[in-house]
């Protein structure tokens, strides 16, 4: 019996287990998935939880409920990947041999990468990328009486790159509904050169910040936080004051990747962006946020990658050349506050454009345009996530590779996407 081992039962690993369980010959191959945690969190919900859209029970399920019956689920911590011996060492001392390894260990925030951030962590400084952070932030916002609110991202790449901007828009909406907006000075701080860095997005969406009276600080590379003075300080000694700081700290791959000597400076694994094969080991594949591929770290990317990778692993098992190629396809609903959202669809080569999605003309969603139905789509997506996406079932109208139908492509020039 030959073995496939999947490390990580998050969005990417769980989808992969479901796809492979349907495809492989179970008399020849077995699948084992390893994850130390019991609970699966719907991470897009962490954006909405602090504002009371969702409660904790809306965003959590048991991981085991999404793992198919023919896949073995080990709830164990992994100590080391030993690629030379095709072996996984578990913390409990046991070893797992594999013929094919799929690494889907994700990315997480690492607050201690920035000096001073942890000094008032979850007191004046909050994250919304963890369940603890999102819950504590909800408590803080419920009782907050106003002042300087700063939403900040430390450095790219981060998971769901638009989330901090969405958080800013939702904060504006939330504060307006509470009658507190006049008492809050709301500022968005980014290391990039603008809130929107693509010309077309800036043209179509740039007015939102002005309309919502949101201050913008660009090109801000954080060096440290002075939690006594409640001040962020950049490498070139620029300063931003806050009373309430909502930050997205540095995102890194799992420490396991570092321990195993397989990652880059952020513990992401060098991976072929089309085949999803590790650049160093031919029987190791990397899926989702754990890979260093140049597209967004997002569930939609992992979803499309999982379909491509399933095909390539079937090729690999039979000794055939890879026939499937990831195009870096992503699509995301982006909350813009006031009950509206916009939607973007893009890949390695094609930037976000205007048009209709997923069906030409019919939509019902509009690309790069603020609409109420897009907001309802974002809320409805939670059902799709638990019931279709994680189980590797098809989603209506959504294709693995990006389609050009229904899109206004005329204004495009080709550029690369950073993260």
């Amino acid at each position, binding site marked *: 019996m030959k073995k496939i081992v999947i490390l990580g039962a998050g969005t990417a690993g769980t989808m992969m287990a479901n796809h492979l369980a349907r495809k492989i010959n179970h008399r020849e191959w077995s699948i084992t998935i390893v994850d130390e945690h019991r609970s699966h969190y719907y991470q897009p919900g962490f954006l909405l939880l602090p504002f009371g859209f969702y409660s904790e029970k809306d965003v959590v399920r048991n991981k085991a409920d999404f793992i198919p019956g023919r896949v073995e689920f080990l709830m164990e911590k992994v100590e080391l990947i030993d690629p030379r011996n095709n072996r996984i060492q578990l913390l409990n001392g046991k070893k797992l041999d594999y013929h094919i390894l799929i690494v889907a260990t994700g990315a997480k925030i690492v607050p201690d990468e920035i000096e001073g951030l942890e000094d008032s962590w979850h007191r004046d400084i909050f994250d919304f990328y963890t369940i603890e952070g999102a819950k504590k932030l909800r408590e803080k916002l419920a009782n907050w009486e106003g002042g300087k609110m700063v939403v900040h991202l430390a*450095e*790219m*790449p981060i998971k769901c*790159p*638009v989330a901090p*901007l969405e958080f800013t828009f939702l904060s504006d909406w939330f504060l307006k509904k509470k009658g507190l907006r006049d008492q809050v000075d709301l500022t968005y701080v980014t*290391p*990039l*050169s603008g809130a*929107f*860095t*693509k*010309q077309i*997005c800036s043209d179509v*969406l740039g007015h939102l910040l002005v309309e919502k009276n949101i201050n913008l600080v*660009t*090109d801000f*590379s954080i*060096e440290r936080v002075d939690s006594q003075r409640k001040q962020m300080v950049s*490498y*070139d000694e620029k300063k931003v004051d806050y009373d309430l700081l909502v930050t997205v700290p*540095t995102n890194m791959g799992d420490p396991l990747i570092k321990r195993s000597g397989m990652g*880059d*400076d*952020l513990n992401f694994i*060098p991976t072929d*962006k089309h085949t999803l094969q590790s650049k160093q080991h031919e029987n190791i594949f990397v899926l989702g946020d754990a890979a*260093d*591929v*140049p597209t*967004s770290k997002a569930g939609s990317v992992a979803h499309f990658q999982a379909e491509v990778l399933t095909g390539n692993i079937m090729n690999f098992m039979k000794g055939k050349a890879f026939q499937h190629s990831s195009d870096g396809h*992503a699509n*995301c609903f*982006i909350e813009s506050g006031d009950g509206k959202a916009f939607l*973007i669809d*893009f890949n390695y080569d094609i930037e*976000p454009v205007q048009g209709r999605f997923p069906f030409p003309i019919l939509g019902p969603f509009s690309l790069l345009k603020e609409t109420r139905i897009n907001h309802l789509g974002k809320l409805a997506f939670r059902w799709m996530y638990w019931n279709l996406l994680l189980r590797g079932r098809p989603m209506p109208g959504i294709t693995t590779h990006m389609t050009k139908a229904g899109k206004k492509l005329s204004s495009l*020039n*080709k*550029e*690369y*996407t*950073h*993260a």
Partner: protein
Amino acid sequence: MPKKEIAGVSVDVNEEDYLTDSSQWNREIAIAIAKGEGIAILNDFHWQVIDFLQKDFEEKGTLPTIRRMNKAGGISTKELYEYFPDGPLKKASKIAGLPKPQSCV
């Protein structure tokens, strides 16, 4: 796609004058772009940064972060800000003939 004459050569650029075809880049073009960005002379440190950006972009398909320039390229962050003031990555990438650091929107 717009064209622009830089250091006597006609090159393809985007609306912010970043080169869109890095194969058109050469050192004279870099010197000319740097002048436009307020950097009168490119010294050894500038060239070290440009070389690292180009090498890393070739390998990874994305621009490195300031952290990566420090950890993988041995480039001091304080010096980076000293020699490429006000947004070192967007300036250095422009001089190196690479795209501007971007997000997905």
